[in-house]
């Protein structure tokens, strides 16, 4: 087959897939999640909380197993509050906590993962336990099975996250850059840390649908890290990482539809390629 034929084959295949409403839903949700998850990347990387995504998503996994066992009508009612509470404890505990930073995240994350799997194993009636666990961890096909109400919920939550981020943008910058100065200037740094924690927990619960809980950190930090290689102001880095995140997720999803690869890992691969490109561009720009 010539390159032209492959291309036209792909285009027709893509057009065919896009006629299915669940594919369109998946793409809308994917793009929104990508946008939200990139927003707080810079803050989390700089606060040395790069692994918070992993930690919290494992908490969400644990909560999800409990919700499954309890047969709740909508898992979100348990998963979201549990994750938010853990996020607040981890991020807002402050400098006095006995266990903090990476140690606390690691501990919470493995405990939740272990307990979640244990509970699922002991109580579930599902015949395909390994498959269920695998799709929670790697995302796989979850996003293609979203119901209309889940899509609407996802759109609403994403919009709220974006609006909150824009409203608190300057304060988030101030608190991340210099917490002590922010406090002396009359900003309630503690309150903003809690707000950051709540936003990030919400994003992670949303993003679990897309890439699963093992790959979530990529979605949160990769765009920010790539943008930081090239841009020098907080505003530019934030905008660039949002754009990058949307592009990579879109590319990853389309490729995975066409090539039949797992969604989550394909998106992360797109992120890796983008990071490599930006690292090279950053190098070249520094030399000039």
């Amino acid at each position, binding site marked *: 087959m010539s390159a032209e034929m492959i291309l036209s084959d792909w285009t027709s295949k893509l057009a065919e897939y896009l006629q299915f409403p669940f594919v369109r839903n998946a793409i809308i949700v994917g793009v929104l999640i990508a946008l939200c998850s990139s927003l707080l990347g*810079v803050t989390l990387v*700089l*606060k*040395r909380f790069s692994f918070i995504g992993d930690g919290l998503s494992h908490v969400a996994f644990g909560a999800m197993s409990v919700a499954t066992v309890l047969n709740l009508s909508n898992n979100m009612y348990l998963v979201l509050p549990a994750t938010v509470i853990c996020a607040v404890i981890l991020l807002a505990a402050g400098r006095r906590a006995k266990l903090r930073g990476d140690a606390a995240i690691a501990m919470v994350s493995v405990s939740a993962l272990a307990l979640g799997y244990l509970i699922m194993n002991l109580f579930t009636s599902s015949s395909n336990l390994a498959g269920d666990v695998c799709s929670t961890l790697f995302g796989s096909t979850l996003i293609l099975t979203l119901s209309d109400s889940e899509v609407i919920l996802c759109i609403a939550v994403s919009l709220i996250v974006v609006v909150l981020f*824009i*409203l*608190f*943008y*300057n*304060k988030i*910058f*101030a608190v*991340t*850059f*210099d917490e*002590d*100065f*922010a*406090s*002396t*200037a*009359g*900003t309630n740094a503690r309150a903003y840390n809690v707000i950051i924690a709540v936003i990030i927990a919400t994003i992670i619960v949303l993003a679990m649908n897309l890439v699963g809980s093992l790959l979530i950190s990529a979605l949160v930090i990769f765009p920010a890290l790539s*943008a*930081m290689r090239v*841009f*020098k*102001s*907080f*505003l*530019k*880095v934030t905008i660039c990482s949002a754009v990058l995140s949307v592009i990579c997720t879109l590319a990853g999803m389309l490729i995975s539809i066409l090539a039949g690869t797992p969604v989550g890992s394909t998106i992360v691969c797109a992120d890796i390629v983008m990071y490599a490109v930006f690292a090279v561009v950053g190098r070249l720009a520094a030399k000039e």
Partner: protein
Amino acid sequence: MSAILTCSNLTLGYENITLATDVSFEIGEGEYWCITGENGTGKTTLMKTILGLTKPLAGSVKWSDEAVKSGVGYLPQQTAVQRDFPASVTEVVLSGCQGRMGFRPFYNAQEKERAALNMERMGISDLSRRCYRELSGGQQQRVLLARALCATGKVLVLDEPVASLDPKVTEEMYELISSLNREDGITIIMVTHDPDAPARFATNELRFGQEVTCSCQLK
């Protein structure tokens, strides 16, 4: 001269360690105070206490109404986070205006002008678009000083402003601080390790020692 800050019978420390007891002093408007002493004697804790970042174990800290109204400018030491923070000079200086915003989400024209003015004052206008982390130590201190000036018109609290600066830049920094004190009447409270600083610049010194804490008039 009216007092801008009154501390009475402070006990400083944290958890179950007491660093200093019965610290009382009164800082007048327009004065230049140096807080000196060995490491671990309580000078940083005192600074954090007067800034309201930590609570005193006993005693009270009282700022004058005027100081509360104008705000307190704080020049902290550099943190590890800032070393790789992607932020432009303008963004950092503008964040000094955050106390004026209240619940308004964005900076207004007046605050942007205030930031530009303070950058001008510190001689860093030409750096405004540069990345903070790529500046030299002295330039970074000027940026943080401009930010502190955005937060106040009355009083600056400086935490070892010349630590890790080379001698020439140190002199420039001291000169800058003195001129703010002299020409703009800004009250200076400076924590320092430099044994010569009090005699050269300050009007008063608060010295922390192993046993006694004394405050003395220098000029």
